[in-house]
């Protein structure tokens, strides 16, 4: 017996204690990302938990201090990569605020189409993953084909799918092609019935309701104190949405409502995201309609007239002196920014994505800080799951829409 103890060096008191320590993560299929939770379990009940993050920290804020504005856009892709167009446009909007660039209405509406598509794809992933974690795999596979369609639209507009690097300061790199609009029409036509089916699969499903109602709940007051934003905050009953409180990209021209929940539990988070997808669909429809109303030269506008910051057309770069100079200056970061401090935020897929940019008048930011919503609200996780069951903690984790890329920056 004593010999046995010598070989396996157990921590002091680990035999006598009544609880079990369990590592969930850093790489575990149920975490959907790289986070570690060290949980103390009494049976299946969670006594305490400690979260560790930072496994994929890539020092974006430091890298950004050497990069000209356009080279920072690809960094923002890699924050919340489930809805990277929103991050890209948030960054471009921040630059536009600093540089005082006004965008034409058509650009705003095109941006809104892309951002709302991104929101749908983000919520779609999150909600279907909640389904997977409660044992319903079908919904997840079924809706994937519509995320694919969204990605095809991105591809048509910017050439890439996941890390999109979409748009420019002042607008888009090119006008939307007819194929993009055809695909958008297909999406608008087919997606509502798919979302309806997806919703039918879950909202009144006895098993799903039993698993999600009353688990992972938080009060509005605690959620605000914890800095919750986005659907997670709205599920507690607070109707804070950046699109309405500080409208950007002409969101004020649109008619949509902000769904709110009541209990802030996993079920309410699911419902809020579900309803937001319907609202996003309606916004896209309105935006598409508005775009079709532009006539003549206005119908071809896809960027603001800002040669200092907007890359010229490639044909012009090869044939015109002026365009070549601007191209060189922008690519090499020879255009200095004005001095100033701006904070700009957009409603990202999982909350308020903020950019705090300090410029000292140089080519690269003096300091750039990302307000990453899930980094801030993930610290409430122990409070959400303590006292609950381990299997509910897994559902809570996926319903918070945690994206490791965003959390770790």
């Amino acid at each position: 017996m004593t010999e046995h103890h010598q070989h396996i060096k157990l921590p002091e008191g680990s035999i006598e204690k009544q609880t079990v320590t369990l590592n969930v993560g850093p790489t575990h299929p149920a975490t959907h990302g790289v986070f570690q939770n060290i949980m103390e379990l009494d049976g299946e009940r969670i006594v305490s938990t400690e979260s560790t993050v930072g496994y994929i920290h890539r020092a974006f804020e430091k890298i950004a201090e050497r990069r000209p504005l356009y080279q920072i856009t690809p960094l923002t892709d890699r924050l919340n990569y489930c809805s990277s167009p929103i991050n890209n446009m948030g960054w471009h909007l921040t630059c536009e605020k600093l540089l005082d660039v006004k965008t034409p209405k058509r650009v705003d509406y095109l941006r809104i189409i892309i951002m709302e598509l991104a929101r749908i794809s983000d919520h779609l992933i999150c909600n279907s993953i909640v389904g997977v974690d409660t044992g319903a795999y079908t919904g997840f596979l079924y809706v994937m084909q519509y995320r694919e369609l969204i990605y095809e639209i991105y591809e048509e507009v910017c050439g890439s799918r996941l890390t999109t690097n979409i748009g420019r300061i002042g607008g888009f790199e090119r006008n939307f092609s007819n194929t993009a609009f055809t695909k958008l029409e297909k999406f608008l036509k087919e997606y509502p019935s798919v979302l309806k089916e997806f919703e039918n699969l879950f909202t009144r499903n006895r098993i799903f309701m039993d698993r999600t109602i009353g688990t992972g709940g938080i009060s509005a007051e605690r959620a605000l104190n914890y800095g919750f934003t986005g659907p997670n905050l709205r599920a507690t009953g607070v109707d804070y949405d950046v699109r309405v409180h500080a409208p950007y990209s002409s969101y004020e021209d649109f008619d949509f409502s902000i769904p709110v929940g009541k209990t802030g539990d996993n079920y309410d988070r699911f419902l809020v995201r579900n309803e937001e997808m319907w609202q996003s669909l309606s916004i896209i429809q309105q935006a598409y309609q508005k775009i079709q109303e532009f006539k003549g030269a206005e119908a071809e506008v896809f960027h603001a007239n800002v040669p200092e910051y907007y890359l010229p057309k490639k044909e012009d770069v090869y044939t015109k002196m002026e365009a070549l100079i601007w191209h060189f200056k922008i690519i090499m970061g020879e255009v200095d920014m004005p001095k100033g401090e701006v904070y700009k935020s957009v409603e990202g897929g999982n909350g308020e994505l903020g950019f705090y940019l300090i410029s000292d008048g140089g080519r690269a930011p003096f300091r750039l800080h990302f307000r990453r919503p899930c980094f801030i609200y993930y610290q409430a996780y122990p409070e959400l799951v303590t006292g609950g069951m381990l299997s509910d903690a897994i559902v809570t984790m996926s319903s918070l829409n945690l994206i490791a890329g965003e959390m770790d920056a």
Partner: protein
Amino acid sequence: MDKEQKMGLTNERIQERLTGKFGDAVFHFEESYGMLSFEAAKENNLKVLQFLHDDAELGFRFLTDLCAVNYPDQPGRELAVVYHLHNLVDNLRIRFKVFTDITTPDVYTASKLFAAANWMERETYDFFGVNFVGHPNLKRILNVDEMDYFPLRKEYPLEDQTRVDKDDEMFGR
């Protein structure tokens, strides 16, 4: 532009309330891109935050963001801790800064007032070495525990892009 001033509370009114309460202890008021920004001595950060939070008229109860900035050229004021606060009712944002010297970067923690500040302060400590006095768990969060420097300070430059001494078949330049 953010439509922030349509309600009752305005930037001028906030400044009035703050100077009425703290006098000269709050200073450097400026409005950049529509957001009111001001400073206080680092000893007073909690008093100011508490007042902003508790005052019925001001009601800045939401901590949007907390981060630090390193200004190596300002002796005695090398580090700034920047709080972005939001009044959700009147829909106004403000920016509040406290400066500290880099040799004794002690700033009181706001984590008792805002639970959200806990990790944001840990991140700020991790990257700038700001010592948040009274923080319940001030340790590194994104970097490895063994790290012995604060990487976002300006004294640690990024790798020289023109270096030629690297001989790496797979990842070298």
